């Protein structure tokens, strides 16, 4: 039978490379001896020659389809009858040359007519065409739809596997207008804008509410409560820390009065918060503590301090962490506080000093409270918490939220028991008297012009003997030329134009001397 012989040759090729060993079917043995096989061998050689000439693989199947009169006996392996031409077969496809290999004539051996028996499927074994559409590139509107689908899927994932009861966050920030305020507050605004939960932001401003702060808050689009605190921010760090504590208490009174419900966290404007922090504090029940990384940097860039720093680095551990300390079974046993001994005498006293700024023993930022602890009356308010009013009068301040508790063992350590640091404490400030443009808009233009150190103009113009009259006319033309030359020398490479600029310099300086 021609058909099995042909198949054998095909399959021999495939199976030889596919399976290493294995006796093939017995019918393969007789194939090479019959004259039919010899004919096919000759035909194969002929096709190879034709392929070499034409430049693509001329499949023997074309010959098979053109000249073969056999149809198979099995139901599904249907061969095209002789009358079908190659054109007929090829028209049903839209194909395109794959760039890597030369284009073969891919045949589609589908035939709907030869359905021999009762239930033949249209799935045919054999060589099929590779269907490629005319413009196989992404459609932008479909890409957009796909992205919307992905967003919807992710939203559903968040609903199902994310936090179950999403509580509102009440963020309390003390701030005041100063040079670095825009820097710090912008960072904090961007962090809060990314938080996926409902947010109420209570901003307490020392020295009363100001337009600068209000402008910044308005741009954020967050729900803010901007309140002023009458005293101005003091210059010394100690006093500033105490004032900030009072400002936070003031904000807590707002929470109490308005009975805001949610989780209270203290975000200082110069701190850095990671997004996992906001997810983690959702799990607090009453009062929780997180670990803070203290970035107490020294503002010095002098070389003398570098040496002393090196000595310190050898003694010091990595960045100090403030937060809850747990025993091996995950229970709170104590606190890691900031050790200020190495910095005795070297810390900054006033804001803007070029020395290390130290935090308190336990910073407020490391604690989160359930707002019900602050309320006057709440349903399941635990007994181990003291009332806000009884604790602090109007002028008093509290060291840290731990003062609220009669018993500090009820604090919940968050962030895998304080092992994960999701919050960093940093204080970077300019001097208290430093000036900065209001709203960071330069209007009117700056009046003070400071001489730049590296411009083409020399500091002291050299003297140039020249004729006054001719120079007047020359001056104007030279002025214009000199200006363009100088401007070009600024943009172009200095080495090339040095010669020209030097000429311009001398010319200009000539002008200066004339003007003088």
């Amino acid at each position, binding site marked *: 039978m021609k058909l099995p012989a042909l198949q054998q040759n095909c399959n021999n090729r495939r199976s030889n490379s596919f399976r290493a060993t294995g*006796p093939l079917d017995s019918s393969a043995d007789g194939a090479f001896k019959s004259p039919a096989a010899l004919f096919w061998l000759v035909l194969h050689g002929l096709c190879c020659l034709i392929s070499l000439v034409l430049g693509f693989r001329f499949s023997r199947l074309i010959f098979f389809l053109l000249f073969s009169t056999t149809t198979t006996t099995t139901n*599904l392996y249907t061969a095209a009858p002789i009358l079908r031409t190659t054109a007929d077969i090829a028209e049903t496809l839209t194909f*395109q040359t*794959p760039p890597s290999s030369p284009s073969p004539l*891919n045949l589609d051996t589908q035939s709907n007519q030869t359905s021999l028996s009762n239930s033949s499927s249209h799935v045919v074994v054999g060589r099929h065409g590779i269907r490629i559409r005319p413009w196989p590139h*992404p459609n932008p509107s479909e890409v957009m739809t796909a992205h919307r689908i992905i967003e*919807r*899927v992710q939203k559903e994932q968040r609903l199902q596997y994310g936090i179950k009861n999403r509580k509102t966050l009440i963020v309390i920030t003390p701030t005041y207008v100063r040079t670095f305020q825009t820097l710090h507050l912008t960072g904090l605004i961007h962090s809060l804008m990314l938080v996926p939960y409902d947010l109420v932001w209570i901003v307490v401003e020392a020295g009363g509410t100001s337009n600068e702060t209000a402008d910044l808050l308005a741009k954020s689009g967050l729900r803010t409560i901007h309140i002023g605190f009458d005293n101005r921010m003091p210059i010394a760090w100690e006093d500033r820390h105490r004032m900030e504590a009072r400002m936070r208490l003031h904000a807590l009174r707002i929470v109490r009065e308005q009975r805001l419900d949610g989780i209270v966290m203290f975000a200082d404007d110069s701190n850095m918060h990671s997004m996992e922090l906001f997810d983690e504090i959702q799990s607090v029940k009453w009062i929780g503590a997180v670990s803070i990384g203290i970035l107490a940097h020294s503002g010095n860039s002098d070389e003398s301090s570098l040496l002393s720093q090196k000595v310190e680095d050898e003694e010091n551990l990595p960045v100090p962490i403030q937060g809850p300390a747990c025993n091996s079974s995950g229970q709170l046993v104590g606190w890691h506080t900031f050790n200020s001994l190495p910095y005795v005498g070297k810390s900054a006293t006033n804001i803007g000093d070029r020395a290390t700024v130290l935090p308190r023993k336990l910073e407020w930022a490391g604690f989160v409270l359930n707002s019900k602890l602050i309320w006057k009356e709440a349903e399941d308010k635990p007994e181990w918490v003291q009332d806000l009013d009884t604790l602090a009068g109007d002028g008093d301040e509290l060291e840290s939220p731990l003062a609220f508790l009669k018993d500090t063992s009820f604090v919940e350590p968050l962030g895998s028991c304080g092992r994960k640091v999701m919050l960093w404490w940093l204080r970077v400030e300019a001097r208290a008297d430093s000036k900065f443009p209001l709203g960071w808009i330069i209007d009117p233009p700056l009046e003070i012009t400071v001489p730049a150190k590296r411009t083409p103009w020399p500091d002291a113009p050299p003297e140039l003997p020249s004729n006054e009259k001719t120079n007047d006319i020359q001056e104007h033309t030279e002025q214009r030329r000199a200006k363009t030359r100088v401007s070009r020398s600024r943009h172009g490479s200095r080495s090339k134009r040095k010669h020209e600029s030097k000429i311009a310099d001398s010319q200009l300086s000539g002008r200066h001397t004339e003007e003088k």
Partner: protein
Amino acid sequence: MKISVWVFVVHLVSGFALRIIAAELEQGQHTERISGSAGDVLEDDPVGRLKVFVYELPSKYNKKILQRDPRCLTHMFAAEIFMHRFLLSSPVRTLNPEEADWFYTPVYTTCDLTPNGLPLPFKSPRMMRSAIKLISSNWPYWNRTEGADHFFVVPHDFGACFHYLEEKAIERGILPLLQRATLVQTFGQRNHVCLNEGSITIPPYAPPQKMQAHLIPPETPRSIFVYFRGLFYDVGNDPEGGYYARGARAAVWENFKDNPLFDISTEHPTTYYEDMQRAVFCLCPLGWAPWSPRLVEGVIFGCIPVIIADDIVLPFADAIPWEEIGVFVAEKDVPNLDTILTSIPPEVILRKQRLLANPSMKQAMLFPQPAQPGDAFHQILNGLARKLPHDNSIYLKPGEKLLNWTAGPVGDLKLW
């Protein structure tokens, strides 16, 4: 008296209300019940519904073969070995063949491996024939029905056709001696010679521990739209393309290789399982055979399978409503795959994900050791139980012979 009546009425009403509320609540949960054409049968317990007798064959049919090559325990055809082990210790096993509903013959036909690990099917017909000769001569139960109440596990590429090439498999057809038996196989394609009416399709074996070890937190957002890793052209055996996968895989590559939504490539990364869990759709196109372990992996990892294989019959098709869970794309529609997938409404996609999240769905695709309720072993037994009771016509009259013991290629008749 009146009060008690009122109390009764109130209880009745509240009962109804609670049931309605529970049904509504289930819509908002992240799984959904699965019920196929046979009903809500995934969680049925086969124990007590059928009895299986396991023939004791000499170890040259099973244990010795396994000893020669222990790779048979981890490749995708390992279901035959694990089914045997499961049945030996299962409560459905009976030692009394008179009360058995089904008879199982443990012969490992897919364990003759090449150095690369691929099974050679050339001796399998002879092995099976020899096993059947043995059981027909030592026990009377084969001749009673000529195998109609026997079942065999044949997980090879084309089932009991015992060949890896489709044309040759079709030519051979199902082994004549197995024509009346129930075949438990991974291959399934409608109107195909190698799928008998009444066969049970099972998923290919995928190692459960390996997959569990690569699970990532379910809240990791799914950011890949379509994912596929595998060959598009089988350069060794079909260099031009067109034979392998009927050209469908090559069409996927040529149409979507520069589409940012399609993360498709031939490289097999170490994070393959993790990537599947970050994808919304996973392509499961046919290869040399229409079935693939990708379906199992997609179901376990919650990635909606996109099945590109015309007329394929998926595992446990009567228990699992695959049309509602996966997306079926005809091979001729592959160039429009992106349009098809993006035009599926998001609610439908979310529903498919809910169905996939159903733990009984995942369990039904696995072959865990030791067996757990609802796993693939139990689904096979459920499938066998659903075919009971046997019709009386399967019992032959004495002296009646329906099978032709000399049919088939000459090579099959040699002794094994």
